[in-house]
């Protein structure tokens, strides 16, 4: 079946501009996650959605970052007033929701959006 899709695959923007990144999760996956992968750094968690709500936003680096999810499906990550340090690959993942009866569900990742801020 179809995997996680993300768009655009590449985005070049000028410092100070706003950008929107989109994620379309695997059908039936109610849990959705955003991560960031910077050069020389590992994958870092940004935000977790359970359905349309975000119980864990602890990884968002500043209030310039926000995300929403609608219809329990597509999610958008918005970065306002981009800075050069925002340059990274932004990865989206989805999974079945942890029910407490299963130890942990694996997360499936999309191909990422490479963001370059000039």
């Amino acid at each position: 079946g179809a995997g996680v899709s993300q768009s655009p695959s590449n985005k070049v923007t000028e410092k100070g501009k706003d950008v929107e990144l989109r994620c379309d999760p695997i059908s039936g996956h109610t849990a959705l996650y955003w991560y960031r992968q910077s050069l020389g750094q590992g994958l870092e968690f940004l935000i977790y959605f359970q359905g349309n709500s975000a119980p864990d936003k602890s990884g968002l680096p500043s209030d310039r970052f926000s995300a929403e999810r609608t219809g329990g499906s597509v999610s958008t990550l918005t970065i306002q007033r981009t800075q050069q340090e925002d340059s990274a690959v932004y990865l989206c993942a989805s999974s079945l929701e942890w029910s407490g009866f299963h130890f942990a569900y694996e997360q499936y990742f999309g191909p990422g959006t490479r963001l370059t801020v000039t």
Partner: protein
Amino acid sequence: EDQVTQSPEALRLQEGESSSLNCSYTVSGLRGLFWYRQDPGKGPEFLFTLYSAGEEKEKERLKATLTKKESFLHITAPKPEDSATYLCAVQAEGGYNKLIFGAGTRLAVHP
């Protein structure tokens, strides 16, 4: 603080030369440990989930094992197509569902 450390950072092998990658973790309570493979320019690809010490899982030339403090990814008779970055991640109890990743091991297998 929950933490994952992978070693070595990079590993070069000759085709057929078996080796192991290490993932050490510190977590308040382990819900699951995950191994992923990442090729350049692509998102991580899921390989294995391990839940409890003593557990082992295999897939082709890869075998993952878990103890209370670390996990190993054993690669038997690797081929050039096994070249990739291998990522280890943990999911902690009480931490919703986020994964905490190590920095990865870059594996290069030469013919």
